[in-house]
């Protein structure tokens, strides 16, 4: 029972990081219809950027802030250079471009940072675990959870209360109608990419604190795909719930099934869930069923 609780709790905490990255993914999909397969690399870039700032001696919160800023700039550049000219092109073309982007980013990362695993040194979070009742949790998980929740909260408030957030939601709902009110689609697309880069960056940096930074953080970033399929491709709450569920399932699978296999269940299991989900409920838990008026 304790193992179970332990697994579920760490699962929720790691899952909150997936939720953050998944939210960025959903945002791009909702606002511009781009199915972004380079999300893992965005996560990876975030991890390396924050690591670099940290090794330069910046305190971790400032390194995170710097990652956010760099992320926003990279997001806007990516949209401007690669995706703007593709507006109105067939879906497959755009997907292929994001695949290309993922290889491009990966190459760039290896060029700049090499392929060795690096760790945050000195460690950002103390090693002593925290006791929560019967369960023992590493501090890094706890703080990652808090950071992810805080950022999710900020983003939720941004969408609800600011005019830019509302404009992005409007654009996701009905592009033509939003344009008829003078809202610029270019602005919305750029903002979506900037926020996605920022969310993935923070996610990557937190994941890097847990596992160390190497290419495999990129694979973790790719877990957004099962998360968003589970939650529904165009649902922001779905992304959050989906991310957390994937985190928990992944942890449980790793904890209980890994002993029967040579390993790797943890990596595959989310994608098994994704496949099942696509068979049973292709719109996900919270995907849009068009509102029908009675």
């Amino acid at each position, binding site marked *: 029972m304790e193992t179970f609780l332990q697994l579920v709790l760490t699962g929720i905490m790691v899952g909150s990081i997936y939720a953050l990255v998944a939210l960025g993914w959903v945002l791009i999909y909702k606002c511009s219809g781009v199915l972004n397969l380079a999300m893992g690399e965005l996560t990876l870039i975030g991890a390396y950027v924050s690591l670099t700032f940290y090794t330069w001696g910046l305190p971790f919160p400032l390194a995170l802030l710097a990652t956010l800023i760099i992320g926003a700039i990279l997001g806007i550049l990516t949209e401007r250079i690669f995706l703007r000219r593709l507006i109105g092109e067939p879906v497959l073309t755009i997907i292929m471009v994001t695949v290309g982007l993922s290889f491009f980013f990966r190459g760039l990362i290896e060029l700049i940072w090499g392929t060795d695993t690096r760790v945050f040194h000195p460690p950002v979070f103390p090693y002593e675990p925290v006791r929560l009742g019967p369960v023992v949790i590493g501090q890094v998980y706890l703080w990652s959870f808090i950071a992810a929740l805080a950022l999710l909260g900020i983003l939720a408030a941004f969408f609800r209360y600011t005019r830019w957030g509302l404009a992005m939601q409007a654009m996701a709902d009905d592009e033509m109608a939003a344009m*008829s009110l003078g809202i610029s689609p270019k602005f919305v697309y750029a903002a979506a990419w900037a926020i996605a880069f920022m969310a993935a960056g923070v996610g990557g940096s937190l994941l890097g604190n847990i596992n160390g930074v190497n290419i495999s953080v990129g694979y973790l970033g790719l877990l957004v795909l099962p998360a968003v399929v589970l939650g529904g491709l165009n649902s922001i709450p779905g992304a959050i719930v989906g991310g957390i569920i994937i985190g928990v399932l992944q942890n449980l699978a790793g904890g209980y099934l890994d002993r029967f296999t040579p390993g790797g269940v943890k990596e595959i299991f989310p994608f098994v869930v994704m496949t099942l989900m696509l068979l049973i409920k292709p719109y996900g838990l919270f995907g849009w069923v068009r509102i029908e008026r009675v």
Partner: protein
Amino acid sequence: MADGGAMLQVNNIEVRYHQVILVLKGVSLKVPAGGIVALLGANGAGKSTTLKAISGLLKHEDGQITDGSIEFMGQRIDRKSAEEIAAMGIIQVLEGRRVFEHLTVEENLRVGAHHGDGRRLSERLELVYHYFPHLRTIRNRVAGFCSGGEQQMLAIGRALMTNPRLLLLDEPSLGLAPLIVREIMEIITRLNREQGIAVLLVEQNAKLALEIAQHAYVLENGRVVMEGPAAALRDNPDIREFYLGLTEMGARKRFREAKWYKRRKRWLT
């Protein structure tokens, strides 16, 4: 201004979709400052395309103005983007209402105020609620669940939030109950009179449109085939027959006797 106080002047525009399909073959029209102008015509005549050409939304549908020009307050706007045109005060209310279904009524309105001064937001909201008091009572309802009439009011209210000078209304009566249509037409007239907002109104319901407009154009197959003061068009025998469904005596005509197709041909040549 070039032409006797015309606020909007469309000069002989030609519009193509996908660079091949010629939809408008030389349309000219004028909207005077503070006026209501109706644009009538059958399905596929090019009414919506004309509005989209003015508002700049055409480019979004791979349409292009290949000839002619559009001037607003003495400035050429046919090469400007939809955002720039909206910022100048020309706002199109799209056909079929197109509210943001997943946002609440008030959030929909706030999207309309996107470019406005944030401090004047509540002022604009009050203005919209003044003209559409019903919207205030449903302000927290999700727009997708509102009735057709409520959605149409919301669409017009949302446009009003932008502080427009010229509204391009595309079939505001589409699919609504006659009573609601009356109400909406009255509000449009009041907006025009009290706020000085000029209106270019596209309507299938020619009777209503000719009641509230001062001037009207009839579009067929991408050409203006007739224009004149609304009162004159109301009395025109062709309009009476094809758009108002009345014969010279004011009685309904039987379908068998109409032979409208033959007479309609006359306009096309």
